[in-house]
């Protein structure tokens, strides 16, 4: 049977040639790098093809399909993690392989062509990493790749056309993904395979370059070198698995959103040195840092085999290699150090992590991901958008727990109420507390500091008897119940009797609420904000829409803009602010 097959194919001779390649001086650990890279590439091909079966390249489905692989499919995180981390580890292996080749002089004649093959392969693998970084279409890949493709545009004469060709149009979109995917899964792997075949053929043609002096007798590739290679590949896989398990797959940032700038955008770590290098080229000299200098360095590296012929050539080459590595290392270190000291970058990373976690919660919600894509989930989420809108539109006067809603201190003086917990019993109790009503948390910054309400609280409420204070608590419960806050749902149900009593008391002679406010019935004579549905969603959106409305402050309004009336904010944005202030957003525990 095997004889028959051998007669037709000659596989035994081939196998013999593969396995019994002579290794001058016998097997050595330093020869394993090429094999580990081949192994890495095999992992990438296998995992890549399986990922391909679940990946969908378009701007409404790329992130979503990657999310589905990572979070929903059985073992998807493991598959994606293997692909991601093998790519990372391969970059390190590329450097080690290159170092071994240069240190051992394996680039010298007659192996020039093979050295060039290797250098092209190195760039192909880096191109695979670059194209792969975009495919999840998350904020990180999107913005980082935008930077990379913007650099293309500075190429003289053809730059802009080149950029359009690469991204498939004037802007990022469906065709950016289809093109990057075709490059990543078709063109680049095809070229890589062709070059690897050539690389291994040439390597076999010239044989291994032994590390001089050769101390041991020659040996065949099989079994000792194969064993060393296998152990090295196993160590590579173990390293990859370590990272895969530690990160439960690979990171997936929030879905790409062109309307959400992402200050945390950085290229992957192996491009950080180039990223940092660009910072040193001011104005129009960018082309030097992005193209000319890296291009020159690469040219000199390509010429290493010829340089190596000079007496001092090998030493020069070694020096050059070490300088490039040290330089890249230094630039990478500087990039990381600068980022770690940059509070804006750190805040952006934190926000990115929050968004990534939040969008996964929303994607898992019963409503699922809409056809318009997952970016809409974050755009329509009060928890995500509320703080940002508050910080931009409200925090110049108001505060939220002392800050601007996003956790940042505000420089301007506070001139309006702190709205954290607005609508809750605690918030209202503070307003009706004689010691707090004219504090900066309530009316302190406004003209109402000396208004009727403040006077009533400071004079009348202060003199309340214990019995009246008990009645006030019920009124607070009743008015706060108008807000229908999710967080108070249970309290409101349990205290139904108190709330009923409070409603009656609010209109009574002691509490005197309805002397100025309307409460649960129309009142033309009311001069203060309507307490009917106070702090409910409808009340709050109407107030933000126009506080000058008779139902609220009317002519007495103190500086608050009519955000809706004046078209500063649209109804959706106002709704997001109101929902966020009222603590009304999707939480998995609230769902059935």
């Amino acid at each position, binding site marked *: 049977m095997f004889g028959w097959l051998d007669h037709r194919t000659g596989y035994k001779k081939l196998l013999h040639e593969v396995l*019994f*390649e*002579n290794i001058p001086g016998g097997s050595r650990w330093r020869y394993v790098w090429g094999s580990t890279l081949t*192994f890495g590439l*095999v*992992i990438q091909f*296998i*995992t890549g*093809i*399986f*990922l391909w*079966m*679940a990946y969908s390249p378009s701007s409404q*489905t790329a992130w*979503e*399909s990657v*999310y*589905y*692989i990572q979070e*929903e*499919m*059985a*073992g*998807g995180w*493991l*598959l994606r993690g*293997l692909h991601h981390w093998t790519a990372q580890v391969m970059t390190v292996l590329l450097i080690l392989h290159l170092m071994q080749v240069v240190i051992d002089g394996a680039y010298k004649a*007659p192996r020039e062509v093979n050295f060039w093959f290797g250098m092209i392969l190195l760039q192909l693998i880096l191109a695979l990493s670059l194209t792969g970084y975009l495919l999840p279409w998350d904020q990180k890949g999107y913005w980082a790749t935008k930077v990379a493709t913007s650099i293309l545009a500075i190429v003289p004469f053809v730059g802009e056309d080149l950029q359009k060709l690469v991204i498939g149009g004037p802007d990022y979109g469906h065709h950016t993904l289809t093109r990057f995917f075709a490059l990543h899964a078709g063109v680049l792997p095809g070229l890589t395979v062709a070059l690897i075949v050539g690389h291994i053929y040439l390597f076999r*043609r*010239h*044989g291994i370059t032994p590390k001089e002096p050769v101390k041991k007798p*020659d*040996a*065949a590739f*099989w*079994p*000792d070198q*194969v*064993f060393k*290679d*296998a*152990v090295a*590949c*196993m160590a590579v*896989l173990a390293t990859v*698995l370590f990272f895969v398990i530690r990160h439960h797959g690979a990171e997936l940032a929030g879905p790409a959103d062109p309307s959400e700038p992402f200050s945390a955008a950085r290229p992957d770590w192996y491009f950080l040195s180039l990223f940092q290098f660009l910072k040193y080229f001011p104005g129009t000299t960018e082309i030097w840092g992005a193209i000319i200098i890296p291009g020159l360095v690469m040219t000199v590296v390509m010429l290493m085999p010829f340089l190596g012929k000079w007496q001092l050539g090998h030493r020069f080459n070694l020096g050059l290699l070490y300088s490039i590595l040290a330089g890249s290392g230094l630039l990478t270190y500087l990039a990381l150090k600068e980022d770690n000291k940059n509070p804006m970058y750190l805040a952006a990373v934190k926000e990115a992590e929050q968004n990534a976690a939040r969008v996964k919660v929303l*994607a898992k919600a019963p*409503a*699922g*991901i*809409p*056809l318009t894509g*997952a970016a809409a989930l974050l755009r329509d989420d009060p928890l995500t958008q509320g703080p940002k809108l508050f910080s931009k539109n409200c925090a110049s006067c108001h505060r939220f727990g002392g800050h601007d809603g996003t956790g940042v201190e505000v420089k301007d003086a506070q001139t309006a109420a702190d709205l954290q917990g607005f609508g809750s019993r605690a918030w209202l109790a503070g307003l009706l507390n004689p010691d707090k009503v004219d504090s900066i948390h309530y009316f302190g910054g406004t003209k109402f500091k000396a208004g009727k309400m403040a006077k009533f609280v400071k004079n009348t409420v202060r003199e309340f008897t214990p019995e009246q204070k008990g009645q006030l608590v019920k009124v607070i419960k009743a008015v706060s119940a108008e807000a229908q806050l999710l967080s108070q749902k249970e309290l409101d149900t349990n205290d139904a009797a108190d709330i009923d009593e409070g409603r009656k008391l609010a209109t009574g002679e002691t509490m005197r609420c309805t002397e100025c406010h309307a409460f649960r019935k129309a009142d033309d004579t009311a001069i203060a904000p309507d307490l009917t549905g106070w702090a409910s969603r409808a009340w709050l959106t109407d107030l933000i829409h126009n506080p000058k409305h008779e139902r609220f402050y009317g002519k007495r309004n103190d500086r608050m803009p009519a955000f809706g009336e004046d078209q500063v904010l649209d109804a959706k944005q106002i709704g997001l602010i109101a929902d966020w202030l009222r603590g009304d957003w999707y939480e998995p525990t609230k769902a059935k």
Partner: protein
Amino acid sequence: MQQHPDPKDPARRNFFAEGASVVIGGVISLVPVVAGARVLLDPLRRKSKAGAATRVTSLDALPPDGVPRKFPVIATRIDAWNKSTAPIGAVYLRRSPEGVVTALNVVCPHAGCFVDYVAEKSSYLCPCHNSTFKPDGAVSDAKSPSARALDSLEVEVRGGKEIWVKFQNFRAGHAEKIPCT
């Protein structure tokens, strides 16, 4: 070309290195394959969520003349990561002069093509392999490739006004009606 001395088979065979190489090589190559195969097999874990009653149309849209009319079935559809309201299939509805409403799945039980109703012939015709069915769904010709009648579906008239259908697909090519799950 640099000539190497023809390497001889090693004099001393290293069984440990040979065995370990084969075992390690096998195991580490299996890891990406197994990881991929798990994801590849993921669809086997997923069950069809069809079978819930869906409002298809109103009774007024269906004259009591016994002539089948086609209606799309629009329902909440889960397509991998997306959840949306989308067509999940179509049905032929008939209302007899007595007022009885019946529903047939438009899909041919033979090989899954979309069956047309040809009014002139008062019969359903499958455009793929020429199966024909009577208006009530029964196979009309013994030579029809279809092994069973068009699949009837449960119908409910709610409130005397709305037609609700329990939409389901069944496996093609079998003589029995086996629901797809």
